């Protein structure tokens, strides 16, 4: 209990010895309960780390009574757990002195070699020396931000962007400038405009953060032609690209898309992870970076964690070499495809008029736009009461924009639960529409994110009956 050890705050007795105004009426000296005695000593970057009612609502969403369309948890029940368990046991029994020992901060060389094979599926030719293993790709994001960003530096990122990336950027006090997307992902013209706007203010972005395939939370994918355009713009501007690609192998149609990194080894840092293709609990991801950046990443990783879990790295290496992992990814793909179909069918069947949403060709997420005026964050308590959870769009933008959007994830719940969850959500939205119609004309106009532009509302939304 913090309050037990706190230094008593001065009561009402001034140091001069003069009696305090109320002293005679105040028999007990008042003490300040310092719940956190270090409150005025935190770094500036901790200032925004505060309790939030949204987190409180997510604590409820984890209960089985609630259909959670919020979290992005991979479906591990499809993994061959017996085989993985046997493999792990064997690994410790046979190679325990290595698997349980320290290791280099860059990561196990054998694993890095296997990672290069994995990336070759997306057209990337890379050498294991260019790979740095990280604690999930989240740590790669953290390290990249750490080595590039001083407080106030600008990062360009899609609007919306992955909430975990925005959290990392905020913790390094970056200024995030969102670049709009449509149903084809990042809009190249908008990227050019953002760069020009920055230049006119005498500013320069440190990097572009993008999730080009099966975007989180947008559910959209940058087609090949746009990939070339985006790369061209970044090359001309000398802008580094951080390509975050957790879902690249989880496309529902055809072969994996060619990664941005495949066409620009010097201008792109590629972030990968086994969290979606094997299991997130292993916490194994990686960064593929040009040599200069790679060196800094290794030193930064050493400073952060000394080295990563050797056991987890060797487990992944063993899994990639001894298990039919590509077959397993196919199983995941089919499972997620079925769930995506279920969700899209359910949305089309029951969502009220005025809602529109994206149609993901892979990955985990559908991005839904509510009818004008509705706010997904304000609506969340109603949804929790109705036993369904989603993530409000505000989490995916900096500065409080995105209230009219929400992210739905179809990766974890069984199809029947998805249908039930969407049905509950439709009721919640209908009730909210009715409430807003009661106060119509009295509410301030809601500006669109990024100055009133209409996001993600191209053909993907246009074929929804309005």
């Amino acid at each position, binding site marked *: *209990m*913090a*309050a*037990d050890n706190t230094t008593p*705050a001065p009561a*009402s007795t001034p140091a001069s010895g003069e009696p305090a105004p*109320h002293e005679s*009426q*105040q*028999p*007990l000296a*008042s*003490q*300040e*309960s*310092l*719940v*956190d005695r*270090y*409150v005025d000593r935190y770094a500036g970057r901790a200032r925004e780390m*505060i*309790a*939030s*009612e949204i*987190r*409180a*609502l997510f*604590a*409820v969403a984890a*209960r089985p*009574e*609630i259909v959670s369309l919020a979290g992005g948890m991979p479906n591990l029940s499809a993994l061959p757990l017996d085989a993985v368990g046997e493999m792990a046991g064997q690994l410790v029994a046979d190679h325990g002195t290595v698997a349980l020992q320290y290791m280099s901060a860059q990561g196990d060389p054998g694993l890095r070699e296997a990672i290069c094979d994995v990336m070759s599926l997306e057209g990337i030719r890379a050498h294991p020396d260019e790979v740095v293993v990280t604690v999930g790709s989240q740590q790669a994001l953290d390290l990249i931000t750490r080595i590039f960003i001083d407080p106030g530096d600008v990062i360009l990122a899609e609007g919306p962007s992955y909430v975990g990336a925005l959290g990392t950027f905020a913790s390094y006090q970056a200024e995030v400038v969102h670049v709009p997307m449509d149903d084809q992902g990042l809009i190249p013209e908008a990227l050019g405009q953002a760069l020009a706007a920055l230049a006119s203010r005498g500013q320069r972005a440190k990097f572009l953060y993008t999730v080009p395939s099966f975007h989180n939370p947008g559910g959209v994918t940058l087609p090949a032609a746009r990939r070339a355009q985006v790369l061209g713009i970044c090359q001309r501007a000398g802008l580094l690209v951080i390509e975050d690609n957790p879902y690249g192998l989880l496309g529902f149609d055809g072969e994996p898309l060619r990664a941005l990194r495949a066409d620009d080894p010097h201008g792109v840092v590629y972030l990968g992870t086994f969290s979606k293709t094997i299991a997130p609990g292993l916490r194994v991801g990686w960064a593929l970076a040009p040599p200069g950046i790679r060196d800094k990443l290794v030193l930064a990783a050493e400073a952060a964690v000394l080295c990563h879990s050797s056991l987890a790295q060797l487990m992944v290496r063993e899994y990639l070499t001894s298990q039919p992992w590509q077959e397993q990814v196919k199983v995941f793909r089919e499972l997620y495809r079925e769930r995506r179909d279920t969700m899209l069918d359910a949305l089309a069947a029951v969502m009220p008029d005025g809602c529109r949403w994206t149609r993901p060709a892979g990955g985990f997420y559908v991005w839904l736009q509510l009818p004008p005026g509705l*706010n997904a964050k*304000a*609506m*969340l*308590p*109603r949804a*929790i*009461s109705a036993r369904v959870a989603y993530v409000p769009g505000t989490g995916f933008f900096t500065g409080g924009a995105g209230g009219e959007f929400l992210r739905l994830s179809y990766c974890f719940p069984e199809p029947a639960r998805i249908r039930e969850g969407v049905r509950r959500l439709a009721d919640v939205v209908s009730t*909210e529409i*009715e*409430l*807003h119609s*009661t*106060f119509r*004309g*009295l*509410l*301030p106009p809601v500006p669109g994110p990024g100055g009133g532009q209409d996001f993600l509302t191209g053909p993907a939304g246009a074929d929804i009956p309005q």
Partner: protein
Amino acid sequence: MSDLGHVLILAGGLSAEREVSLRSGHRLRDALQEAGVEAEVADADAGLIAAMTSDPPSAVFPAIHGAYGEDGSIQEILALLGVPFVGAAAEACRFAFDKPVAKAVVRAAGLATPASVTLPKETFHDLGAAAVLARIVATLGLPLFVKPARGGSALGASRVMAAEDLPGAMISCFAYGDTALIEQCVLGTEVAVGVIDLGEGPQALPAVEIVPPASGYDYAARYTAGQTRFFTPARLPEAEAAAAAAAAVTAHRALGLRDLSRTDLIISGGRPFFLEVNVAPGMTETSTLPMAIEAAGRALGLVCRDLLSAAAARGN
């Protein structure tokens, strides 16, 4: 060691206050352990009734906040199961949890409470929101405080400084419940006064003064350690402190509460104004009741142990 035997703390629940409740429950468990009582934390879920039937606890400490925990439903279930529990009985909880009802009851008992109106969302729909809101502002003035008629932790609550912010505050409020309490925002010193009854009648604990950051005592201010400053006892003249203590005891008695409660008051012009009462007060590190117990020179664990013993002796 205590002879209490098997004690259960109920924490969690399915309201937005779940996380806060879990923190309260775990802190209570630790405090009881220090007092020699082995307590288990259990959630109110589909397994609860079976578990309580097959292995009935000697007493239960409900620490579920918000609906289900404080609206009397969990107390009703405990009574049905014949399990002794700490705190008010179901009927008293129902009155206390409904803020407008509690305000009416304490007003009848002589306490002051900010002027307010209570309206369901249908009224705004049926009579026209613009006309209703305009009348409210004309009558109550500004600033106003809008909050769900039922619920806690400031969830869905907002302070409204300008009339044009009122519709938005209503929307936020109606996301948490279908009835809103719109109250005059009385400016003054905010205090929370705990009341405990260890067999000698309800006694007020030292008032805890709450000094929120400029943004107000919202959810973040309540549960981010260090954002809000707390002074115990409140920095009040003796007469005001005594009036606050008396008001909390009056509210506790008038609402027919039992064992413990926490009354939130605003001291304005030397006078306490009743805001609301909690029958399952927060027990987290940033909650005021544990601070008050400590300031009274008591240990949280021993107080809770004695309340459990009294409940066990009382039976149900």
